[in-house]
């Protein structure tokens, strides 16, 4: 019974991180119409920055803040230097059919560059990443409790971020402007919303969310240029399961994947995790292609 509860709690904590990464994908998809395959590459890069700060003696929290800020800056840079020019480029007849896939290819190129740069700067070998609180299971008089302080920390941080984002997107002018720009760019532009600025903002928020996911997951995966590829796949599946255009769906999808993967790892074998992900992805696309909470016309492009 204790194994089951601890599996569930670990699964929820990991699921919260996947939810965050999936949310990053959904924000850029809604805001800019791009599935950003480079997202966890950006997160890997900023986690390396944090890791270097910590190694040089700075505190975890300073590194934490710096990583989040550099994550959103990196997202903005990618939009300003690459994605915005691509979106504004007039498509010639031979590339019109590729319009939906060109940003995907661009994001793969960005991923390759970020991974190569990380390899060149910080070597290709794995290193660990610290946690701000104890990651061992709690002990009390009767025995070991089935969760750690870090589990609680992760769930708490993600919960706060989700609440902040909900407030931002439903109560603030900028957040509402971003949603309007995503829903109908033409009308939003007529109402005086600077649509391309809103797009850049989506990239920044998504970059910060991805960075946070990277900071929270690397203590359990270690850090190397490629480690976060797996998280991208899980986050993508989570976003598809929940519906690529639904932020709430991304959170639910992330939790489903987190708990599902924990159960498969504990009661099946870790090797079957990928098969389970693939099966889930196929099942959702065949039965409910728009995801659990997705709208009717999700699949643009």
């Amino acid at each position, binding site marked *: 019974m204790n194994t089951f509860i601890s599996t569930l709690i670990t699964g929820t904590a990991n699921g919260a991180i996947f939810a965050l990464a999936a949310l990053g994908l959904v924000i850029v998809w809604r805001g800019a119409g791009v599935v950003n395959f480079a997202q966890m590459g950006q997160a890997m890069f900023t986690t390396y920055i944090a890791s270097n700060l910590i190694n040089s003696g700075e505190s975890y929290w300073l590194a934490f803040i710096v990583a989040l800020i550099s994550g959103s800056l990196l997202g903005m840079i990618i939009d300003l230097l690459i994605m915005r020019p691509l979106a504004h480029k007039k498509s010639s007849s031979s590339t019109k059919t590729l319009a939906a896939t060109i940003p995907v290819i661009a994001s793969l190129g960005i991923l390759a560059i970020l991974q190569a740069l990380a390899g060149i700067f910080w070597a290709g070998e794995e290193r660990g990443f610290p946690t701000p609180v104890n990651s061992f299971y709690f002990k009390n008089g009767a025995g070991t409790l089935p969760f750690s302080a870090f589990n609680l920390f992760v769930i708490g941080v993600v919960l706060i971020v989700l609440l902040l984002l909900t407030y931002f997107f439903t109560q603030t002018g900028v957040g509402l402007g971003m949603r309007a720009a995503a829903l109908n760019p033409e009308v939003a532009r007529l109402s005086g919303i600077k649509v391309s600025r809103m797009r850049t903002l989506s990239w920044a928020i998504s970059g910060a969310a991805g960075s946070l996911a990277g900071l929270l997951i690397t203590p359990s995966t270690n850090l190397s240029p490629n480690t976060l590829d797996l998280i991208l796949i899980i986050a993508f*599946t989570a976003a598809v399961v929940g519906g690529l255009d639904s932020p709430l769906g991304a959170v639910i999808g992330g939790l489903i994947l987190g708990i599902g993967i924990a159960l498969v790892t504990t009661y099946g074998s870790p090797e079957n995790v990928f098969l389970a992900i693939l099966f889930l992805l196929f099942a959702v*696309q065949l039965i409910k292609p728009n995801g659990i909470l997705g709208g009717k016309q999700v699949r643009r492009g």
Partner: protein
Amino acid sequence: MDKGKKIWRKNLIKSLTLGVFLFLLSFTFEPYNQGQLALVLMLFIGVLSLTVLTGASGQISLGQGALMAVGGYASASLITNLGASIWVGFLVAVSATAIFGLILGTAAARVSGPYLAGTTLVIALALPSVANRFESVLGGDVGLIVDFGTPPAWISNLIEVGYEQWQLWVALPVALTALFFTSNLMASRAGRSWQAVRDDEIGAAVSGIPVARTKVIVFVVSSAIAGLGGALYGLRGLVGPSVYPVSLSLTLLTAAILGGVGSIAGAFIGTLIVVFLPDLIDWAISGLAISEQFSNYLPSLLTGVLLLATIIINPAGVMGAGHRRKH
């Protein structure tokens, strides 16, 4: 009818000319470069499969390497378990991958754009788990050991053939067959109806083209070609998860994009670039004092930069410029 025959003959002459040229050229090469040229031909088939998929449907796949793996495993398990010849292996690889593509295509026809890209990426990542799940047949992490064998007596009596050269001589006719088939297909009635679906689904449907079925067929044909390339690729020594990693799929995609999506000549140029780029870099930096860490990641860095530059400067790729002028 007459015109179709003309295209057919033109493609045959083109493919044969390329074949004879590469065959003669290979005699002047060192064994290492003969092996590299054989590698170009193997990957070229994989890139062709993407050319068919992207050129005919406008979609990209990040898991084409996994389809190559299906072909590789199909032929390798037949060769190691039943002692079949490699030529039988090729035929089985093509049919097995076509069936796999049919299943995949039925699901993928409902999916488009980034969805297909992500799904195919997951398929490529799931490959090692599948190999482990059916370890007795597929050999698990290690894989199945196969090779090109030795040339038959009537060749080796005539002329001494090195192993790399023999690789090239097997790869050459296979690649030329794929080239000939693909170039005819894209110009045929079927190929043109695929492009019609790509450019305008509703218009194609109005003209009497069954859209959904067409999408599935494109997937089947693309998969079958990838399977052929995969069988050939595996014969270099091993069919296992390490031979068909995700990076293989990305290499194929890079080659297709660099050369020009949908262009057959572009597919060949793109493949040449991705195969010889690491050698070229080694040659270029050999005189410079550069750390190993830097040179290890340099090919990946340059590939990413080339990919981005292609997309930003001319998304139609190297061969795309000519296409655009025609319009």
